[in-house]
């Protein structure tokens, strides 16, 4: 698809806004003891919609933006995984800290599924955080406004 700055901005903004609002809603429902059978399809639908919007957004980017985005995601993800490893090893070997971390996030006596969610969430959040920082650094790097 041809490059379109307006459509790229709209789709990216839509994906981020929907992702943040949807995650807040799902988190709120899960924290208020909503039926997991009701929340699970909502999570799947939200995930698919956000990914769909994200892919649509990428189709409106030009080739250089795609090339740079892929590079940032690749290195950001690798660094994100490497950066979270010490915390993962620490939590594996210090169970009271793990219990505290899981209960701090899920606000109730932790269930086995909460530990699983925490385990999945931790590296993904770390990857996303590093990619976000890399994007900001890329935008603020010398020469990016010349």
């Amino acid at each position: 698809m041809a490059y379109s700055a307006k459509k790229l901005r709209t789709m990216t903004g839509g994906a981020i806004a929907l992702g943040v609002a949807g995650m807040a809603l799902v988190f709120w429902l899960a924290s208020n003891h909503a039926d997991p059978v009701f929340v699970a399809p909502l999570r799947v639908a939200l995930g698919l919609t956000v990914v769909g919007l994200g892919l649509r957004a990428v189709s409106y980017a030009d080739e250089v933006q795609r090339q740079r985005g892929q590079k940032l995601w690749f290195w950001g993800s690798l660094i994100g995984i490497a950066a979270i490893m010490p915390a993962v090893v620490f939590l594996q070997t210090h169970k009271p800290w793990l219990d505290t971390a899981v209960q701090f996030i899920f606000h109730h006596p932790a269930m086995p599924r909460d530990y699983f969610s925490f385990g999945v969430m931790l590296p993904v959040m770390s990857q996303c955080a590093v990619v976000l920082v890399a994007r900001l650094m890329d935008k603020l790097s010398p020469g990016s406004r010349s």
Partner: protein
Amino acid sequence: MKNRLRVLRAEKGWSQAELAERLNIARQSVNAIENGKADPSLPLGMRIARLFGLAVEAVFDDEV
């Protein structure tokens, strides 16, 4: 890959935004190519060269 895009653009008196509009790419992409942070594909490289009325090798230099 080195290129003469900044010089050629200056000769024409175009801003990065103007060049980006002519190539239908983002201004940031023009900037990334000029600074060697990104290499254009062959089709985009040919579009750039054609825009300046030059051969591709007159704009881009792969001998670093």
